């Protein structure tokens, strides 16, 4: 039988930040690029995000944070993925993230960080290059 793989992506807003314009625009752009996007809504704990990604068998988790809590929250997600043996899931991040934090985020295991002004096409290309 022919197999038809779809890329599945979780778009999540960890923490308390309510600015979801970017997250929603990206969710739509990924959908329009043929992906299945599970949008989890606001105020998600890292535990919820990781469990969702596992049950949904996601290929990618996209985290968005504009409140400055990214180091704390993103590292928690990575840590939990390792703990649950789900660290095959690729994690990307976006939002208001100072350049100087990016090396640290990458070191902890975030595959890529997309800051304001990134075109959605770059994000789509990145995901495709990693998953397919």
């Amino acid at each position: 039988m022919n197999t038809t793989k779809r890329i599945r992506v979780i778009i999540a807003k960890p923490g308390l930040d309510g600015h979801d314009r970017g997250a929603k625009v990206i969710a739509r752009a990924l959908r329009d690029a043929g992906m299945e996007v599970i949008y989890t809504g606001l105020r998600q704990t890292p535990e919820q995000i990781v469990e969702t990604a596992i049950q949904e068998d996601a290929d990618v988790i996209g985290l968005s944070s504009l409140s400055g809590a990214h180091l704390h929250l993103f590292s928690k997600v990575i840590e939990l993925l390792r703990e649950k043996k789900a660290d095959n899931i690729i994690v990307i991040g976006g939002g208001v993230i100072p350049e100087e934090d990016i090396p640290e985020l990458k070191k902890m295991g975030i595959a890529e960080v997309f800051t304001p002004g990134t075109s959605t096409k770059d994000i789509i290309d990145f995901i495709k290059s990693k998953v397919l």
Partner: protein
Amino acid sequence: MFDNDKINAIEQKYNEWEEKSVKKTVQRFPERKTAFKTGSNIEVKNLYTPLDIKDLDYIEDLGFPGEYPFTRGVQPTMYRGRFWTMRQYAGFGTAEESNKRYKFLLEQGQTGLSVAFDLPTQIGYDSDHPLAQGEVGKVGVAIDSLEDMEILFDGIPLDRVSTSMTINAPAAILLAMYIAIAEKQNVPLEKLSGTIQNDILKEYIARGTYIFPPEPSMRLITDIFEYCSKNIPNWNTISISGYHIREAGATAVQEVAFTLANGIAYVDAAIKAGLNVDDFAPRLSFFFNAHNDILEEVAKFRAARRLWAKIMKDRFNATNKKSMMLRFHTQTGGSTLTAQQPDNNIIRVTLQALAAVLGGTQSLHTNSRDEALALPTEDSVRIALRTQQIIAYESGVAETVDPLAGSYYIEYLTDKIEKEAQEYIDKIDRLGGASKAIEKGFIQQEIQDSAYNYQKEVENNQRIIVGVNKFRIEEAPPKDLLKVDPEVGRRQEQKLIQLKKNRNNDEVERTLNNLKKMAKTKENLMPAIIDCVKSYATLGEICGILREVFGEYKQAVIL
């Protein structure tokens, strides 16, 4: 405004000009684009003439500043009397640090305070709550109890500054704390001036710091209206905010429409709660965004003023002139700032601030150049404030009232924006009002469509953002960004432990129990909340009680 003969003559000349001059020129020098549009997708013609505003009635549509329909401004002399309030939104870390920043800003010539609270405070969690981890003191100051608030305003006389607080779901609690401090400073409540944002509907639509479901949230808001009308007459009880709606991606037209639709919902709720429209409406204030399309923005402010005046007069039968005045604060557009070549943001902010002033704002926050990267540093904040001061003192635009009035284009756009916003409001009325339209996801959907279209236009280069999709350069990462001390969370936690040891916990329990009892009735909750605050019950404890009684709002996600 023009007699028929004149109009006919202009029309004839106009057609000749189009036929002869324009066509010939366009043949030789084609225009840059096939269609010119404002940010709200309003088509822009090559030229505006009296033909575009031939139905304009000066007295009825524009009138005079300080008079109905307030198109030209809410005060007769506007900035000739005094400039707008220069009010920079600030706050981060602990109350001690923010207090220092406020004193710095006041020394620099700022005329009003604007308090930013961190997310746990805005969502009603104490700093030691598990969900607060990593968020304490990040986007604003952490306030856990009256004790923090006392530190925040230490050495700042509340009768001499006006304070704006960006607080919504727990607005009643922060207002109660402010009242408690005024009492401690021996400032009579009539002397207090300032604003609480207190606008929950736009939290459901765009900003996300809601706690309770709509019904009890609206009750808290009308309780504040009532309490303030009796006790703090100069307090702006709400700042009905288009700012965040615009940030979420709305167009200028949508910003006006959805903000005023929310305003209608608040007035409806207050009237339903038994208040008299002219008792509370004079203290309603608004909060708008300013983007780069200066002329459209100016028209937007003017259209909003005229439309609100008509709504208050015709729909709600207000008779007090002050009830019909749309007074507003403006903040320049955060979402227009770019992380690339951040100094360019200074120019963007200048254009936007100019639009706000030309549009007749009552107060203004100018964003700092580094806000797409992090919280602003003191240097950046100073430049932002200086931008306002240069516009005020050097540009000349503040010397006369509503200087762009009478421009064919501005008047045409003002009218157009008002009409299109009215159409949206009619549609929202048909859906059962703003609350219902939000529940159905209509407003969110409209905004998201605009946001997505905007993004696509940028990516297709149909919309140029300098430094982002054109005129790019290789840049070194910016330096010297403000870092919030990661220890803030721990320090707040320590303070909470101390507080809970030192306060009279029996009194805390008594006031909280009383609040719980009152929350189940229909009585005004302000007195009970003030008692809780004075007993040093924490914000999280107070919100916890209300969560128990009211429940929590669950987001409706529309994509």
